[in-house]
């Protein structure tokens, strides 16, 4: 590790007093002089940014990743597909190096990694690509009800094209019933898609067992591992995965880049979504963005080094947060299996308190909720509905995300603030009052609005 004074980023700091970009209310990026003024103004008024506890939404970039990317943003700007000059060659070397770093993280061959613009594109490519390639022989796809919107929406589009899609329900703990999965696979099935770690409730599916079932039935297995890669050890051979989606900005890398693992032995064929010059083995045309893929590669390499330590730390912090909250506040439910999970994603339902009001009360902590009020459609989270959460509890859920840069003080502060505000909101809640009086809420005939 280079010392701060010798890295490229610090050289840049010297030249342009770089600050985190903040958007003005018109949505335009502000120049550096104005940034200085804003910073002085902010510090003067003690207006600082909230604590970040939403690591499932996105993650800050690791400084080591930024260091790796900067040369390719500044000086080594060649197109990696240019064959005729040094600019192209050096970019290509960087790109292939990044490919190796991504492959090493998941125990794959570098030739099996395709760079995309993110996990959404990877999911689209995997589902639509495989389904359309094999459509003459197989027209059935199996997935679950708790998948990410991009997977569910891709399946919807495929249904409109004439495919049959089975959306498997999950159990109350969020895990898939393996017998149900086996029963749903038929000779017409081309693909099974089950995400590794759920982004809302943090539940980790039994991927190894699912891979074994799919391999035995001769069906391709795709997994959306956006929330899992870099956080838990993944081995695509041991787990018998045929396709896997990776997201850059979920593992402390840059936004706008991802990858798709496509198995070569036995070969998985795909129809491309994006036509063009045949880059990325003809599966994804378009100039590969060298700085972004270098960032993704560096993020994967850093994640491989830090995985064990991060996992240990995140588990400890998560346990601390949950124990603190649950010991002080009654009627708090953790959504999803308590054991089969990634510890850094905690989804808690605070009964008798609405999620959005709690988020407003916790305004100095950045969190997210499964409540309807926070979604544009006023519908509560479909994942919580799929695990059978009561509707009123679905409205009361908050997701806490813990990551590499979370400190103990942040966790303690969040827990204390949460306890304080939940108590205050319960004092304001008619449901809590009724429960204290011994009324059974399920027995009341509520007015429909």
């Amino acid at each position, binding site marked *: 590790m280079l010392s*701060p*004074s010798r890295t490229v*980023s*610090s050289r840049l*700091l*010297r030249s342009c*007093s*770089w*600050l*985190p970009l903040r958007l003005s209310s018109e949505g335009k990026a502000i120049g550096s002089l104005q940034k200085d003024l804003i910073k002085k103004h*902010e510090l003067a*008024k*003690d*207006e*600082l*940014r*909230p*604590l970040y506890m939403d690591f499932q939404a996105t993650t*800050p970039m690791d*400084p080591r990743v930024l260091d790796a990317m900067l040369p390719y943003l500044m000086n080594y700007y060649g197109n990696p597909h240019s064959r005729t000059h040094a600019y192209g060659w050096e970019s290509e070397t960087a790109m292939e190096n990044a490919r190796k770093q991504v492959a090493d993280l998941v125990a794959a061959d570098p030739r099996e990694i395709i760079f995309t613009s993110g996990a959404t594109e990877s999911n689209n490519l995997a589902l639509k690509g495989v389904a359309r390639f094999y459509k003459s022989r197989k027209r059935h796809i199996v997935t679950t009800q708790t998948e990410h919107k991009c997977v569910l929406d891709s399946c919807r589009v495929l249904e409109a094209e004439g495919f049959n899609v089975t959306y498997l329900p999950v159990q109350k703990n969020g895990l898939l019933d393996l017998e149900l999965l086996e029963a749903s696979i038929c000779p017409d099935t081309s693909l099974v898609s089950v995400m590794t770690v759920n982004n809302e409730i943090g539940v980790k599916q039994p991927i190894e067992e699912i891979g074994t079932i799919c391999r035995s039935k001769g069906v391709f297995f795709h997994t959306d591992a956006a929330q899992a890669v870099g956080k838990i050890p993944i081995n695509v051979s041991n787990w018998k995965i045929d396709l896997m989606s990776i997201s850059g900005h979920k593992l402390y890398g840059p936004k706008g880049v991802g990858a798709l693992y496509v198995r070569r032995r036995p070969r998985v064929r795909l129809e491309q979504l994006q036509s063009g010059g045949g880059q990325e083995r003809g599966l994804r045309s378009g100039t590969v963005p060298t700085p972004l893929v270098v960032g993704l590669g560096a993020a994967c390499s850093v994640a491989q080094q830090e995985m064990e330590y991060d996992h240990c730390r995140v588990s400890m912090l998560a346990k601390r947060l949950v124990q603190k909250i649950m010991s002080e506040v009654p009627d708090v439910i953790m959504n999803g299996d308590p054991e089969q999970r990634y510890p850094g994603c905690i989804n808690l339902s605070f009964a*008798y*308190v*609405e*999620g*959005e*009001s709690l988020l*407003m*009360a916790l*305004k*100095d902590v950045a969190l997210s909720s499964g*409540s*309807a*009020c926070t979604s*544009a459609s*006023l519908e*509560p989270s479909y994942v919580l509905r799929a695990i059978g959460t*009561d*509707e*009123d509890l679905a*409205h009361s859920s908050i997701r806490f995300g813990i990551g590499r*840069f979370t*400190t103990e*003080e*942040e966790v303690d*502060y969040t827990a204390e603030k949460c306890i304080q505000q939940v108590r205050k909101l319960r*004092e*304001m*809640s*008619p*449901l*809590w*009052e009724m429960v204290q009086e011994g009324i059974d*809420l399920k027995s009341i005939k*509520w*007015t*429909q*609005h």
Partner: protein
Amino acid sequence: MATVSLRNSATSLLLFSRRFFRPELNVLCSYHEKVVDHYENPRNVGSLDKRSKNVGTGLVGAPACGDVMKLQVQVDENGKIVVAKFKTFGCGSAIASSSLATEWVKGKSVDEALKIKNSDIAKELCLPPVKLHCSMLAEDAIKAALSDYRLKQEDKKEERVKATN
């Protein structure tokens, strides 16, 4: 050179250090300040004795919808609302709408209070279109409370009539 590198390391530290928030902070918040104010400085949160003949209780909404409002009004002999209390299970806008409703009904007569419209509440709190249903529920809560009060008053009259007979 030393000061420059010090400034750089300080800037880097600031960049990546965790910063603590003071509780009074409210910038970088997408909630309207009036809505936040009703939560930070709650007025009229509480309960009245629902068995009392002068108290009308309105309970509207459903937990399954994520919005439940309980509004109670205490009316004096002249038909004027003297005390109003509320409790809400709902988002920030719902809490603010019901809080504002209790502020507005205080001091009004029952007929005047019935004239309060959800559009007035929404305008006062600058509610975005997606939150308009919160103000509608607040209007329903006022009407439900006053209708409950009216029913109790009719029962009271009947009892008096029976007693004299």
